[in-house]
């Protein structure tokens, strides 16, 4: 097992979401779920992050920003799209500003469904992302 799996740092970004999924992501850090026991840290700095947790359907304004954050992350990296909006735009699919999901702008590795996604589901998604990170880092080295 590579060390990327033992210490996965994540960056969370709100890509035009209603904040429901964001609150659930932050709930994962609270004592009830406590993802720090897996060594996961929510860093605000893409240069320090391995996993990119995005919520929301992405709009024209933050399209370039989301891509910039992704580029700033050093490899190996994994993208996790959290929530129905991140999957295909969700309830906001027909809005004029929503591009319709994270995979319109970035290569997504894991999708976590839900509206809002439950912390248990988010943790499940992050655990799958860690396994993928492990594979990527093994194939990279």
């Amino acid at each position, binding site marked *: 097992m*590579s*060390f*990327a799996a*033992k*210490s*996965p740092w994540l960056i969370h970004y709100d890509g035009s979401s209603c904040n429901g999924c964001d609150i659930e992501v932050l709930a994962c*850090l609270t*004592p009830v779920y*406590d993802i*720090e*026991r*897996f*060594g996961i*840290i*929510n*860093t*605000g*700095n893409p*240069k*320090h992050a*391995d996993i990119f947790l995005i919520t929301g359907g992405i709009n024209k304004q933050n399209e370039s920003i989301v891509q910039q954050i992704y580029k*700033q992350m*050093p*490899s*190996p990296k994994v993208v996790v799209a959290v929530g129905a909006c991140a999957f295909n735009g969700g309830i906001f699919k027909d809005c004029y500003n929503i591009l319709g999901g994270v995979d319109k702008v970035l290569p997504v590795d894991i999708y976590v469904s839900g509206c809002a996604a439950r912390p248990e589901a988010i943790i499940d998604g992050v655990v799958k992302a860690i396994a993928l990170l492990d594979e990527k*880092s093994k194939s990279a*080295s």
Partner: protein
Amino acid sequence: MMLQIISLIAYIIFAPIFGGLLAGVDRKITARMQGRTGPPIIQPFYDVLKLFSKEALVVNYVQNLFVFGYFVFTIFAGCLFFYGGDLLLVFFAITLAEIFLIMCASSANSAYSSMGAQRELLQMMAYEPMILIVAIGFYISSGSFAIKDIITSKISAITFTPGIFLGFLFILTIKLRKSPFDLSTSHHAHQEMVKGLTVELSGRILALTEIAHWYENAFLIGVLAIFIINSTWWSWIVALVVCAIAYFIEILIDNTYARVKWKVLLNSSWIVAFVFGILNLLALSYIK
């Protein structure tokens, strides 16, 4: 002489292990205070090993040079300290290491990085008076700047410098980067300006700053210890206990106080340096 060399080599080999475990214990105790389980104690080692396997995105190459400078001079300061050398020179060396870190952060053309550098400079301005008073206090109480003389004196330095000890504990909060004084960069969830000083560092360069921080912590605990250590063998045990209690208090303060503004940091540090430090020195100069 032989003992000094053994101590130096032991520092070079064991200080990162000690520093890493200290960081791990810190996170575990912090987590327990917050009602969480917390990561395993060896988590910092996992973090650093992971960072070594990541791509290093270099903003500009002079940053790498400055991080090496910070790393080398931190170890140099610690080595000199554990060899039993001149305390004043040790403090100047650690200040130089910090300057390298500040220059590293300034050299990246980044807003958060520059702000982190400015705040770090401010923090240095806040704790430097107390650090110098610590050195002077040791000189007056044991007659020498050399650490090997301080730890072999008949009476513990703290009996002459209790105020200076308390003052040093106060600024230790700044040096250990703990709330309320973690203005320039802080651990993880406490961030204010993204990561401040280390925002533009990644991969193995970030890992080096982390390891240098461990070496620095080992050295700082050492400075705490020499307040207590004297020529008796049991003073070493007392010093260990005092250091453990002091570090626990630092973790407690970290968890109970929110970050302050820079003016509060500067004013409170200087007031503490004046009240605890200079008054202690004045009292000492009457006694000695």
